[in-house]
């Protein structure tokens, strides 16, 4: 399982952002892998990659690429 590091401001290694935070892309990683690394239950969240929905059925086959922008959301209290 790949590790996930926060990026420093000066590095030039491949990276992506998740919920606005920059992370190093250390090796091949799918959306499924990312959720496991982040400790999130895939059944309770939804994922958007570069402003397009990633359906749950393709988490395991959707590979992250350098420069990707991901949003992972869930339901919270609201009016």
């Amino acid at each position: 399982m790949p590790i996930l590091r926060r990026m420093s401001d000066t590095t030039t290694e491949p990276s992506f952002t998740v919920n606005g935070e920059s992370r190093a892309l250390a090796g091949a990683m799918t959306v499924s892998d990312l959720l496991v690394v982040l400790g999130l239950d895939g059944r309770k969240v939804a994922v958007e990659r570069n402003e397009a929905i990633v359906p749950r059925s393709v988490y395991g086959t959707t590979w992250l690429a350098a420069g990707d922008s991901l949003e992972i959301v869930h339901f919270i209290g609201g009016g």
Partner: protein
Amino acid sequence: MDQAVGDQVVMDAEDRWTVAGRSFRSRLIVGTGKYKDLAETAAAIEASGAEIVTVAVRRVNLSDPKAPMLQDFVDPKKYTYLPNTAGCHTANEAVRTLRLAREAGGWNLVKLEVLGPPPHLYPDMQGTFEAAAALIKDGFEVMVYCADDPLAASRLEDMGCVAIMPLGAPIGSGLGLQNPAMLSLMIEQAKVPLLVDAGVGTASDAAIGMELGCTAVLLNSAIAHAKNPVLMARAMKAAVEAGRLAFRAGRMARRMGADPSSPLAGLIR
């Protein structure tokens, strides 16, 4: 049981409302925000008798992935989740948010709100029209928060929105319904459910909305910001029921001057 009383009980049981093919008994929709904690949220919602609850869609807190989640306290199998677009100020943000909500929960019944800037957070109708068109094209069933503008409302209805939800006063203001005359006009012309959404401050406000003929009332802050939210949730439940009964009963005509309730005949002299 007396036949007339029995008939009334049957009528009450059948006094349901329908939106997008789903039928509900409770005419109170409550928000799930602004509570002290999730346990208080759950207790207040239970006390309100609501069958539909609005929920927001937000980024997961990556530094605390195991934090308790709303679903653990408010069961989506027991309550119909109505995802909203609170905080969205453009059509694009609203559409992205609801697409995520549909993926997270599988629901296509949604509450659309596109808001103008603080301090009013007044409905941005241009953005609302754009978002409603995109969402309806994408298969969503849209309950739409809107201005108390009868023309805008009938356009939204013509576009295919499944419920029209004008404000009674600014979101979270608790000012009560400031526009009963406009709401009445909109109720009269609506061919889909019309709900008052935003502005209710206390129980009498909710009752007034129902007496005007609203299909249902949507509120959050009035319960969550009450000193005792669970008690206020009960008050809102009773107020919505009372207002609905009064609307169905048909109020007496107003008259200038008195009309004694006791007979004038047989007075002692």
